[in-house]
């Protein structure tokens, strides 16, 4: 039995088939995938959401997750942020020769666990192996297909004046967890990545109210960048309060040490919801019942002042502009 991935594993020949049949296909067995035709073929009707993302995180294993879990959750969350119920997923692996098969197996296991939790089915996939140095251990692309319930209209352009801004939990866990593992920067932190599928949290929120206007997951660029995108897309102002924005003590400490601001650090299991003010409390209450929303809080509101801009009221009572992330030297975090 080989211990590492060889170029021949991606040749399309016998070794490729062996890898597929032994390692890649069995964990994901389902009628659509098992046919092994060139395309997955299925019937569909209704409004679809379709999204794609590539994952190049370094290192591929980090506290609280790995590139496999991230690749499933990231795409599931992109679907969920449109209000879609995730259905089908494609997974493409670009493997650098020399990756340990044991590591690949761990990642496959983690992909399986994440798809199970998110109740999404892998229906097609691909594997390529490239020469050493032409990729960094493993890159994954996933595309996802989901169905949007009728009448639901969630978009970054839908924020309205006086809506409340809800954040689902502590900021910055993913970015700090990954950075703590970065070569040359290794530091010890109890923080684990928050990487998680949020589709069930979203469906519970939608049960509480249909007046959820915007949903977005603050990944790269952090909360600050996400709020700026929403303010610009909806052409409204957003005001948040510093003391309401939650971040773990260890994340805040690491940020101070490294010169970062938790508002700009990536998250992989958090969402921002902009909700009609009359419905915000009931949505919040529902969120708190979900394990991924226990620390949720209302952090601010939409205003007609300063359209396109985000302002934060500081603890000391001053206010400052929160701009998008601009030019920082950050490692590959997703």
């Amino acid at each position: 039995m080989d211990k590492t991935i060889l170029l021949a594993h991606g040749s399309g020949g016998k070794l490729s088939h062996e890898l597929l049949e032994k390692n890649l296909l069995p964990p994901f067995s389902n009628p659509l995938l098992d046919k092994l035709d060139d395309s997955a073929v299925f019937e569909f009707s209704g409004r679809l959401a379709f999204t794609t993302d590539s994952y190049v995180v370094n290192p591929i294993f980090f506290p609280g997750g790995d590139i496999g879990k991230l690749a499933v959750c990231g795409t599931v969350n992109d679907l969920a942020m449109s209000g879609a119920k995730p259905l089908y997923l494609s997974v493409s692996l670009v493997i650098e020769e020399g990756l340990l098969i044991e590591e690949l197996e761990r990642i496959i296991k983690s992909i399986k666990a994440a798809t199970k939790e998110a109740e999404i089915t892998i229906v097609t996939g691909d594997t390529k192996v490239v020469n050493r140095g032409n990729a960094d251990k493993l890159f994954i692309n996933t595309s996802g297909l989901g169905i949007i319930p009728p009448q639901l209209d969630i978009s970054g352009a839908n924020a309205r004046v006086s809506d409340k801004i809800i954040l689902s939990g502590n900021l910055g866990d993913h970015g700090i967890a990954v950075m703590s593992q970065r070569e040359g920067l290794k530091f010890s932190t109890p923080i684990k990545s928050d990487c998680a599928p949020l589709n069930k949290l979203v469906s519970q929120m939608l049960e509480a109210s249909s007046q959820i206007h915007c949903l977005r997951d603050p990944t790269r660029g952090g909360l600050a960048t996400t709020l700026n995108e929403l303010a610009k897309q909806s052409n409204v102002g957003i005001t948040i309060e510093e003391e309401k924005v939650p971040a773990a003590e260890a994340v805040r400490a690491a940020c101070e040490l490294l010169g970062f601001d938790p508002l700009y650090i990536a998250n992989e299991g958090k969402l921002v919801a902009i909700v009609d003010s009359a419905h915000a409390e009931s949505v919040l209450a529902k969120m708190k019942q979900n394990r991924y929303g226990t620390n949720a809080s209302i952090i601010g509101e939409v205003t007609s002042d300063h359209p396109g801009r985000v302002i934060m009221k500081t603890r000391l009572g001053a206010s400052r502009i929160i701009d998008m992330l601009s030019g920082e030297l950050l490692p590959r975090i997703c």
Partner: protein
Amino acid sequence: MKFIDEYRNVELGKKLIARIHQRSTQPARLMEFCGGHTTAILRHGIRQLIPQNIDMLSGPGCPVCVTANADLDKAIASTHLPNTIITTFGDMMKVPGSHSSLQQAKAEGADIHVVYSTQDALQIAQDNPQSSVIFIGIGFETTAPTIAASILEAERRGIKNFYIFSFLKLCPPVIKAILNLGEIKLNGIIGPGHVSTIIGSLPYEFIPREYGIGCVISGFEPLDILLCIDKLVEQIEGEQPQVEIAYRRSVKPEGNRQALDLMNEVFGIGEANWRGMGTIPASGLKLKRKYQRFNAEQIFSIDPGPPREPKGCICGEILRGIKMPTECKLFRRICTPEHPVGPCMVSSEGACAAYYQYGAN
């Protein structure tokens, strides 16, 4: 154990703000020396909280920003040396030199590593004995001891392929140079926190003695800065300028003897080339004769050609405190953190970057 909340305590902060308002009766112009201070002041909105008659100016305390183009060009040119690895602090990567930047050189194939400490650079030298490894030594008295330590460590370990550019600079001489220029009338100086942790507060005694204004050394948390402003206002109102420390958990009057000894073992004092101020005598650190074999400028033949200043950029005037970032025609329009024209927009300690990021609204 907590390290942040104590220094951001809202109750104490409000008390200090109230006291500053109570004490302050006359216009006062303060210069915060450090870029780190500028960033903290804007990030916590401190300018809005203090009386309007107190004016805050940014000073030259950003190591990346004060590095002259002539020196930066040397560093960029050295990336073309055969079989050479360049190591640098990350902030330097994007600074535009006369013709290129380190980032650009890297994209074109130069072997450049961003490091977090000089010891990492030394390790790269040890791991790559067949290459020359050059560290771009920028900074003030804060980074100088660590660079000195790496030189001594290279000697101890017998590492023969490690070199540095010493563009290191000293704080008290540049404060003196700014006060001598007399372009701006200052009533007090918010003294550098980290630099003073190394050199102590005694080297600033000339400020009240010769220029009749106070210097209060500050940390970088909101309470540190408010306390510092409070002390400066008290001095101004009482007409009793002096050197004080508002950062006692880190700074002692005599500084850090061990770090100073390291620095003095390896470096001697020489002139330095400052962006915006030109050459200032006795304001830089140069490798002593016995450590010349580590001196990249001495060992390698590097000719970057004459430096060129970017057109329209007023970084030099901003570093002297005579202009605000928002007074620059390029600010936000052409010069942004993504497309910086001058270094003050690049560094996380740069005044322009801080004004861009945290805006004054």
